């Protein structure tokens, strides 16, 4: 680009070529390499979870089920949900882009506790390996929600091993969260005040808070489940003296905030992308920053909206309903601010921007359909149907995964030092957008029409919509495969990227691509706000 940055000499030493060999990766303390270790691990998990999803959609082409016995289908959606939530989406942006970028963005040489950082990856893959092992050796059929007493005393599948895997992976989240909080507090470069931080850092900070405060609860919850299942201690099953709803309270006390663990980092990424590709300051910086924090706080008190039909009291229902409406407001504020950032910008449409705009649109739909579920009277009808499946996929896939893809495309030149073919990337982004909507939009209608979720077979009148959804899923699958190919290709054959291929602001773009192991030749001194476009040079129009 014309921003006048020099292209680093190809022979420069950087974090990728500083040393070689498998050991230099498996024993690295470099936050950038650890980020890549995570990237490889969660990509594998995404592929496994995605294959389960595609098989499920194929099965549902026929009302009687085209491929599997119900038992196998149940294991399929359980594996899919567990892997996608606990082993892909929760760690996705924080553990890959967060690890890679936080020190670079705040002008530090590494995170606060590099060894802890490596440990958290080992903890994560231990949990992931257990979950994969359990899946291959018989599977689990409880859904990712593990509701007892089914999961504790009735299911004959590998619940204990999977629960152990989730339990262990939780510790990796806690360690990562701690590390990030301390890093952001203590390691900012001179002049990098709180209100000069890029919004990605604010989002990571809010996410880390939820990691540290929320994850212990899910750890305890699955631990109690294990106790009941293995030792028959009566905790959740009334036939042994337990309370079946206690689990749901504990589970959603973590898992609703976890929904925001999945979406907040995406919001942070989108703030970076929208500003970079319109060359503008973010509109309403402090409103966007504080909306992240208020989302993090309110998200801890809305768990009861998952339990409107369990027979909780009317008053509890009312309180959780009003709080759920409340959490919608900061999300709306963000959407409006991103849109306003485009106003009078200089907008270009490389692939990362397409993902970012896709995110804004799909997240808007995902968020608005959440209002149907915060409204008590409509939730009674929609809860437990495909409407829920559509809603959370709009938020988690249309939102979080779109942002993850956008972020990977945006920082790929920084991570690898190479450009990928933007043409193919834009095509893939468009395919993902179309495939996504075709897959999940029909599910809103299916849900309202009354089709329950987690059904291996279904009444014939729902077939047309299911076939549409399955057709969309194959398009979506292709959309996700293409990047896998050209990104891998680009690592070897891509054009060298230079320090700042997008002409973006942010300390990470001032250093070499890929950065040297110590990140910066010299620790930068920050003298301006975030997104203070233009990058040196260029003229105002």
């Amino acid at each position, binding site marked *: *680009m*014309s921003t006048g940055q020099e292209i680093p000499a190809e022979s420069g030493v950087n974090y990728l070529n500083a040393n070689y060999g498998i050991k230099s990766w498996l024993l690295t303390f470099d936050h950038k390499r650890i980020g890549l270790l995570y990237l490889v691990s969660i990509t594998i998990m995404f592929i496994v979870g995605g294959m389960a999803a595609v098989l499920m959609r194929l099965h549902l082409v026929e009302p009687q089920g085209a491929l599997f016995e*119900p*038992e196998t289908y149940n294991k399929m959606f359980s594996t899919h949900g567990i892997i996608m939530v606990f082993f892909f989406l929760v760690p996705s942006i924080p553990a890959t882009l967060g690890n890679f970028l936080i020190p670079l963005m705040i002008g530090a040489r590494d995170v606060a506790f590099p060894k802890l950082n490596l440990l958290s990856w080992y903890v994560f893959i231990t949990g992931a390996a257990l979950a994969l092992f359990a899946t291959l050796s018989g599977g689990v*059929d409880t859904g990712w*929600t593990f*509701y007892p*007493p*089914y999961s504790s005393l009735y*299911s004959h599948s590998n619940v204990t091993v999977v629960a152990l895997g989730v339990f262990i992976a939780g510790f990796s989240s806690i360690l990562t969260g701690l590390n990030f909080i301390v890093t952001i507090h203590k390691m900012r470069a001179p002049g990098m005040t709180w209100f000069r931080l890029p919004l990605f850092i604010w989002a990571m900070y809010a996410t880390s808070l939820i990691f540290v405060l929320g994850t212990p609860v899910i750890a305890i919850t699955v631990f109690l489940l294990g106790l009941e299942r293995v030792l028959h201690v009566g905790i959740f099953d*009334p*036939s042994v003296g337990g309370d*079946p709803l206690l689990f749901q309270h504990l589970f959603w006390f973590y898992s609703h905030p976890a929904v925001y663990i999945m979406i907040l980092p995406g919001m942070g990424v989108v703030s970076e992308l929208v500003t970079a590709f*319109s*060359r503008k300051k973010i*509109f*309403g*910086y402090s409103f966007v920053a504080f909306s992240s924090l208020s989302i993090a706080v309110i998200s801890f008190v809305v768990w009861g909206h998952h339990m409107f039909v369990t*027979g909780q009291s009317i008053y509890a229902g*009312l309180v959780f*309903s*009003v709080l759920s*409406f*409340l959490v*919608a407001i900061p999300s709306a*504020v963000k*959407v*409006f601010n991103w*849109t306003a950032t*485009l*106003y009078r910008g*200089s*907008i270009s*449409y490389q692939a990362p921007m397409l993902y970012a705009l896709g995110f*804004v*649109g799909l997240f*808007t*739909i995902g968020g*608005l*359909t959440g*209002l*149907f579920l915060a*409204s*008590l*009277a*409509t939730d*009674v*009808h929609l*809860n437990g*149907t495909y409407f829920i499946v559509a809603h959370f996929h709009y938020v988690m896939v249309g939102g979080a995964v779109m942002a993850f893809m956008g972020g990977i495309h945006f920082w790929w030149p920084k991570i690898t030092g190479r450009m990928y073919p933007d043409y193919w990337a834009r095509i893939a982004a468009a395919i993902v957008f179309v495939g996504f909507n075709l897959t999940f939009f029909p599910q809103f*209608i299916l849900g309202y029409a*009354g089709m*329950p979720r*987690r059904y291996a077979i*279904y*009444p014939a009148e729902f077939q*047309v*919509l299911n076939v549409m959804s399955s057709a969309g899923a194959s398009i979506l699958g292709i959309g996700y495969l293409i990047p896998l190919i050209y990104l891998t290709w680009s690592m070897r054959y891509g054009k060298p990227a230079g320090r700042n291929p997008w002409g973006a602001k942010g300390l990470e773009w001032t250093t070499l691509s890929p950065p040297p192991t110590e990140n910066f030749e010299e620790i930068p001194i920050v003298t301006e706000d975030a997104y203070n*476009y233009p990058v040196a040079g260029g003229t105002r*129009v």
Partner: protein
Amino acid sequence: MMGFFQFGINSLAALMDIPMQPPVASSIAEGVDQLYLLLTGITLFFSVLIFSIIFYFMIKYRRRSEGEVPPETHSSLFLELAWTIIPSLMCVVLFVWSSSLYIRNARPPAASTEIFVIGKQWMWHIQHPEGPREINELHVPIGVPVKLTMTSQDVIHDFYIPAFRVKKDVLPGRYSSLWFQPTQTGTFHLFCAQYCGTNHSEMIGWVYVMTPTDYAAWLAGGEKTESMAQQGERLFSQFGCGSCHTPEAGGRAPSLVGLYGKPQKLQSGETRVVDEALIRQAILVPNTVRIGNFEPIMPTYQGQIDEEQMLQLIAYVKSLGSAERTNGQ
């Protein structure tokens, strides 16, 4: 406008054989649908708004030359407040509307016809107080409120009738209830909407809404069965309850006549209205609901009485409620 729009969508859907909504067959369904339509309108409005602004900006402000630097724009407190407050007000309207609808629908009218439901992996047992039982089928009369009292014999299930827009979890170890008033005769889906294991998707059935005369004929037809209360009465003597809970037993235990629905002061100091849950608790874990000065002699029947028998015993105790039915004591 909205109606026209809906008409368009519906005719298109009909052409393609896509169900857009379940039948509207209960007294609350229409209210829920109106709220749903409002929510759909809001969703459409904001999605179209955001999408068109984005498209407009995308074209209007596309980058025209590489070195282009856009003018600065400043954040605006007015805008920030506007797009915080307007959505908030809308949420208040939605909250008030949906909650009042919900509260109105939450409690069954006093004069409801009662029917009992037991969920178990993977079927629905239905029992009518008059005696008839059904599996995965539920016959109800049109135009009168029907209250279901439900429990599960194993894991959590959920009783869902889309055409009535009602759904409630069915939990082991407790009673939950659900009510509706059918407004249309016909046959409607009945689903389990809480994942409950292997054949969850086969835990489905049909609801038959009948005219009162057809319903009466249906109840009377079939083989003659005892009413639930009569079956309960037999169990009452079979389990030896009568050896304590009758006047002949000489006041060893409280009389159960007129018990149902009366406020009962427990030894713990708490006062509870006697309902299904309390009777159930008294039978399964008697020492947790001690009353008066009675010796704690009532044995626990945990593990001896199944969910169906429990409902029959309760029906019997309830039948003692009205003075003229205190026969046999």
